[in-house]
């Protein structure tokens, strides 16, 4: 990336340094673990705390799920609480509705993102509407875990990003964690809500380790519902979720070498979106790029961009850029690095915004 970018950056009002300090001594309740471990621990605690919580899906029981997120839970909590179903996603989600009506808190798993499609009818027409249809008498406290997004060279339909679909459905809430700490807290939060939450797990991050501060509400846990500034910066806001947050943080480090100070906002909740956090960040930085893996057209990036434009129209120095997957089916492993926004493409997006000149 050429240095010319910097030249077009006009100094932002805020003088906060580019990075948040996390180097201070970690609290006692902080443990280093992978996202897989964090999710597993959250589920274990949810089962222990709520006798009505039940986990089920394909291979969730003895196998512990193909990603081992439910590893050991059947052995510990019993085959009544954690069980395998036949191989039918509509069945799994439809059954969740009935269990919820009977007072349970179902935590079903769809084995991979692409296999949520056979269940969309039950998700959209039943789970998302039963509370409404029944005028609040039949709440749907269902936490649907969906291993999501790409990046692991998997077979077809194993690398999909369905957040735009889910976020458009009235009656659903949607969240995606970006690291083990977020994963632990967001899953515990989601799985104790009285409304349906689609929990999109970035499968390419399952095995990355990170610090988890287990204490709820302690510094670092942050708000369970809003977006979160993962890195402060003055020149431009990168908005991302799931696996793209880590990539954006990398990009920010690289850009910093060129003197460009980037703020990275982890959106976390994809529905409802924390519009205030978007506004607050971009009012400061005056420029934004939104990054996601899903195809461009009608992706959630459009919503994020429009929310920013609505709230920051006067402040924005350039139209919000979107760096996303293309309008093509998610490709095979050989081409997935071409498809998923990579560091270069994000840097190009940043460059376009920084170099934008009013015509």
């Amino acid at each position, binding site marked *: 990336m050429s240095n010319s970018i910097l030249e077009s950056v006009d100094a932002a009002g805020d003088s906060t340094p580019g990075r948040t300090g996390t180097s201070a001594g970690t609290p006692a309740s902080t443990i280093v673990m992978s996202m897989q471990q964090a999710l597993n621990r959250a589920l274990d605690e949810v089962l222990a705390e709520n006798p009505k919580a039940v986990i089920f899906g394909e291979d969730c029981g003895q196998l512990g799920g193909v990603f081992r997120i439910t590893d050991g839970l059947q052995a510990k909590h019993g085959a009544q609480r954690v069980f395998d179903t036949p191989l039918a996603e*509509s069945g799994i989600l439809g059954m969740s509705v009935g269990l919820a*009506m009977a*007072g349970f808190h179902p935590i079903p798993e769809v084995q991979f993102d692409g296999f949520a499609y056979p269940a969309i009818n039950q998700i959209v027409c039943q789970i998302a509407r039963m509370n409404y249809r029944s005028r609040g008498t039949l709440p749907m406290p269902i936490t649907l875990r969906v291993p999501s997004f790409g990046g692991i060279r998997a077979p077809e339909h194993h690398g999909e990003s369905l957040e735009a679909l889910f976020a458009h459905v009235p009656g659903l809430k949607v969240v995606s964690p970006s690291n083990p700490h977020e994963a632990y807290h967001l899953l515990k939060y989601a799985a104790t809500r009285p409304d349906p939450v689609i929990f999109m797990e970035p499968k390419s991050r399952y095995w990355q380790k990170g610090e988890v501060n287990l204490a709820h509400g302690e510094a670092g846990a942050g708000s369970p519902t809003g977006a979160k500034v993962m890195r402060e910066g003055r020149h431009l806001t990168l908005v991302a979720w799931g696996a793209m947050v880590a990539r954006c943080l990398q990009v920010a480090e690289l850009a910093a070498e060129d003197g460009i100070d980037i703020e990275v906002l982890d959106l976390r909740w994809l529905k409802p979106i924390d519009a205030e956090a978007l506004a607050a960040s971009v009012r400061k930085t005056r420029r934004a790029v939104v990054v996601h893996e899903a195809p461009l057209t009608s992706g959630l990036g459009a919503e994020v961009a429009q929310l920013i434009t609505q709230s920051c129209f006067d402040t924005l120095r350039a139209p919000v850029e979107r760096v996303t997957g293309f309008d093509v089916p998610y490709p095979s492993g050989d081409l997935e690095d071409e498809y998923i926004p990579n560091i270069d493409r994000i840097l190009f997006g940043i460059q376009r915004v920084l170099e934008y000149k009013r015509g």
Partner: protein
Amino acid sequence: MDTLPVASGGAADPLTPAQLRELYSLMVAVRHLDRSAIAWQRQGIIPGYAPELGQEAAQVGSGYAVDTTRDFVFPTYREMGVARTMGVDMVAYMSTHKATWHGGLYDPLKSRLAPIQAVVAGSVLHAVGWAHGQTLDQKDGVAMTYFGDGASSQGDVHEALNFAAVMKAPVVFFVQNNGWAISVPTERQVAGGSVAARAAGYGMPALQIDGDDVVAVLGATRRAFAHARAGNGPVLIEAMTYRRGPHSTSDDPGRYRTLDEERDGAGADPLERFRQRLLADGIADEAFFAEALAAAKAEEEQIRTGIQALASRPGTEMFDLVFQETTPALQAQAANWREESEHV
């Protein structure tokens, strides 16, 4: 067809004369309300309705078997007769046809009747989940789910039958095979000709019964409930009946079946059949029938008055009933709506 092991306990006990008369009264009430609802639609009182004419025996007979202290029923859009039999508030029930609220205004939890379901086969899996909940809770409630011959083609029905059988869930799958799915007759819908015949493939007992004989329907349903309640798993009942009316008030059956075909297909009227039987068995007389009809008429009038008096729901409910925990974005939209719609 009957592959259900012979019932133990009281499931097959004969009905008392009082019960038989009650069944008749229910059938007359349902028949009269159903016919009236079509008239309401013509008069502009309600925008649409899906009549159950001819299915009174199937609906009253099966609904009568439900124990509303512990069972739970999952209807489609055509089970008015089941709702009435279960004692659901009929103004609240009929409100869905007045376009007041999808699903109806009755309380599903108290009435033990899930909201009215417009997705064909949409709630069949819900019954399985609810029933499995009974197993997990070690309770003895049974879920009964209604669906049609047309609905039987949906993948969800297969998934539900398989899940229920694998989990031995206490579910009664009650199929009203009324010969038609809108314009498509059963023979071009149900390969093999019988939904009940499918049950064997899941190792599930099934009954194919005369759905126009209310006593037979009640007996079969009681047996099925007893079987499921005893922990023996699900049962499928296919009640053979006939949709005597149009699919809905917007349908025109003349486009796909002749009146002759209709008469032949429908056979004897289930209500008239039952009347003759009660007469023949000396269980009821003309005075009773007249009384039952009068009661039905009075009831209909009351329900019609209630429906006519029913106000639209306030628009705020659109927003307030989406979630248990609302969101700032939704509240902002509600505020915006209020401003723009009320202060113009």
